[in-house]
């Protein structure tokens, strides 16, 4: 009986902890390490709608409930910080944090500093929608950044659009994300462009003419990219000899690859994620196929070389940026990122960094920080010099920018070419 009581006590303590802890969830869990209010100008010309009080001078003092003080901008980020795509969320978050640190060090925007709130969505659409709702209605963010996966960007984007808060997605490449409405924009290129880039590289740079594709039918990203590559490749005078599909999580691709071997294509286009791409490369070489392998930005991970080993050598993939580009913006970013996190930033970190800096840039231009004005400023961005290229937001709120092609050499991706938009 005593033991049962002890257990019950444990449970009660645990539960009450769980209920008390969120009481202090006003403190930002994953915010950039800056103290608000240190460099703020008392005469702030921009009325901050997030404070929602008539007296902006002492709004910070008497609004402890919303935790939105008048001398800082709160930016929300939702990402899969846990789950199978946690590395994507973590990289993006690191990039955003670095950008915020930099902007705050330079005095912020219009005298106000930024504070970041990051929420985990566990890689689930429902969680993403809830997280964005919370960011907007409870944390009163000026803008939302997120997600990597397109389906979750759509779930979160609908909430942002409905509430009239701008959202910039750093790395969702599916075309339908920005079709939600005028509040949603992005800093990455879209899948049709990536398909075009790969096709153009194969036709113009490699001068090869037959291709087979092997895509993941359970991933919207992979299936979409496959269609776009096929279309662009055929338009550029190439020939698709066969098209094979697998399901995400498969480990054996010999049936599909045997079919491909019969056609002996010059190139095999594999628009999946790095986990499968590495495996596929191994099995391609085992079957004695000599075709060039090419993929999309889903390959962008240090794990690719670990999984693929020797087999992945000489393969190409399109990406948002290369850390070997000699542009000062790139070298500067890589240096700072290495200093802070001790690792070479991947494309997602660069995109997160660009998304945050583009947002800050738009805020300096915006008439006010109301959702409408801010979205207008974001959507009229022209020739913004980002790490991932010079970004112009077009009429469909997509980013017009170049893409780079990387080549796997000596176990790491090396810069191979830059492909400009049409």
């Amino acid at each position, binding site marked *: 009986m005593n033991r*049962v009581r002890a*257990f*019950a006590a*444990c*449970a009660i303590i*645990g*539960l009450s902890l*769980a*209920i008390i*802890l*969120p*009481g*202090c*969830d006003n403190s930002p*869990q*994953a915010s950039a390490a800056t103290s608000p209010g240190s460099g703020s100008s008392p005469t702030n010309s921009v009325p901050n709608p997030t404070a929602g009080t008539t007296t902006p001078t002492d709004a910070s003092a008497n609004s402890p409930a919303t935790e939105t003080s008048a001398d800082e901008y709160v930016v929300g980020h939702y990402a899969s*910080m*846990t789950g199978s795509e946690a590395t994507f969320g973590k990289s993006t978050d690191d990039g955003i944090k670095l950008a915020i640190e930099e902007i705050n060090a330079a005095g912020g925007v219009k005298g106000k500093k930024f504070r970041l709130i*990051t*929420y*985990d969505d*566990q*890689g*689930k*659409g*429902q969680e993403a*929608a*809830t997280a964005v*709702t*919370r960011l*907007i*209605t*409870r944390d009163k963010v000026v803008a939302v950044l997120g997600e990597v996966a*397109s*389906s979750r960007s*759509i*779930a979160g984007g*609908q909430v942002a659009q*409905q*509430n009239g808060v701008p959202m910039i997605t750093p790395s969702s490449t*599916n075309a*339908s994300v920005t079709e939600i409405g005028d509040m949603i924009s992005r800093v990455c290129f879209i899948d049709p462009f990536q398909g075009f880039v790969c096709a153009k590289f194969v036709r113009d740079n490699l001068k090869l003419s037959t291709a087979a594709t092997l895509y*993941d*039918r*359970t*991933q*919207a*990203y*992979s*299936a*979409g990219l496959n269609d776009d590559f096929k279309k662009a490749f055929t338009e550029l005078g190439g020939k698709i000899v066969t098209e094979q599909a697998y*399901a995400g999580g498969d480990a054996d691709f010999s049936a599909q690859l045997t079919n491909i071997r019969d056609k002996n294509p010059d190139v095999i286009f594999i628009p999946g994620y790095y986990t499968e791409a590495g495996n596929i490369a191994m099995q391609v070489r085992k079957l004695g196929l000599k075709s060039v392998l090419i993929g999309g930005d889903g390959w962008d991970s240090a794990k690719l070389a670990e999984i693929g080993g020797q087999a992945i050598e000489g393969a190409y993939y399109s990406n948002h940026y290369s850390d070997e580009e000699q542009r000062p913006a790139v070298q500067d970013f890589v240096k700072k990122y290495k200093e802070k996190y001790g690792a070479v930033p991947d494309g997602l970190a660069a995109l997160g960094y660009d998304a945050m800096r583009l947002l800050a840039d738009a805020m300096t231009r915006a008439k006010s920080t109301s959702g409408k004005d801010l979205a207008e400023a974001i959507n009229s961005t022209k020739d913004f010099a980002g790490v991932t290229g010079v970004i112009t937001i077009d009429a469909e709120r997509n980013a017009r920018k170049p893409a780079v092609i990387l080549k796997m050499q000596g176990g790491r991706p090396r810069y191979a070419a830059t492909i400009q938009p049409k």
Partner: protein
Amino acid sequence: MLRMKARSLELSPPAWTILPRNLLALVVILAIAIMMHAWVRPAVGNYYNRVMMDVGINIVLAVSLTIVNGFTGQFSIGHAGFMTLGGYVAAATTYYGSQLLWSKAAFFGGTLSSNTAESVFSAGLLGGGDLLFVAGCVLGGCIAAGAGYVVGLPSLRLRGDYLAIVTLGFGEIIRVLLQASGPQVTRTADIAAKNPFELTTALGGALGFTRVPIYTTQFWTILFGGVTLLVAYRLKQSSMGRALLSIREDEVAAEAMGVKTTRMKVLAFVIAAFFAGMGGGLYAHQLGQINAGELGFMKSFDFVIMVVLGGMGSISGATLAAIVLTVLPELLRGVAEYRMIVYALLLIVMMLVRPQGLFGVREAWELIRPLTRRMFGSGAKA
């Protein structure tokens, strides 16, 4: 034989009285739903409103799974499969239906389906859109129930682990089929030109079915949740419910007592699948999209956890577990990365303290009664 049948008919009230007998309960549910939607929703704001809707949807799913896993003691882990199926049917009905009827898939509902309406009673309570939405949910439920029948009939002759594997397989088949479906047709002219059967395969593939008009509100989640609770409760009290419970306690003994075990199990399965399908409809119209990839067997486990934590066969237990397990992760947002660890730890602690679930096989009120007796003396003992 004939006499026995006549007698049993005499004992049980005629079927047509099912509505009048439950009228009071239905009216109460409806009143609560309207009151919550009219006054509580505007007061708590969007975020709490959304969490409360999540709770309602999870109650529908957890309580319906209780009928199979709890009452009947079968172990189904394919509940998310029925939810997905119903959700896709409902989403496709409202999306393609709105396109055909009104040439665009926007919101055409009344104030009961609007999360933004300032005052609920100033304009029409129902519009054309929400009738389509309810029809879609019911159709989704019916198709899920049909699938439940087809899956249940052969597989419910199996027991324990074997049934779990079959239901798991069913859920995965639904997921893979939907992910392999064609792209969603978005242009109104294209939709009108196609015949309805072609549209049944245009379900969005790997991206999921998107652009679903949003109709789910607290009103609908409470109404559907309330009806699910009512059906589960009446079922448990009925002779059929007793038959289901007897299967859980001892299948051989139940069979010996004349319970048609397979038939009863299939019935429980069909009822559970129906409500799961309706819950899927609510889910799709809350999120504005439904993605089969996210509703795999991990989602089924969420509901199994709710049922086990609540206590096998306890309706109030499953309800409480659905509330706790939906609200807890939101409360734990404060601990950021450690959220899921704390969540899992709490689950472990709860299972150690009460391995039989929160309420065991009993209901909340059955536990409270002896407690109050002990507290206020044993006057009621006689």
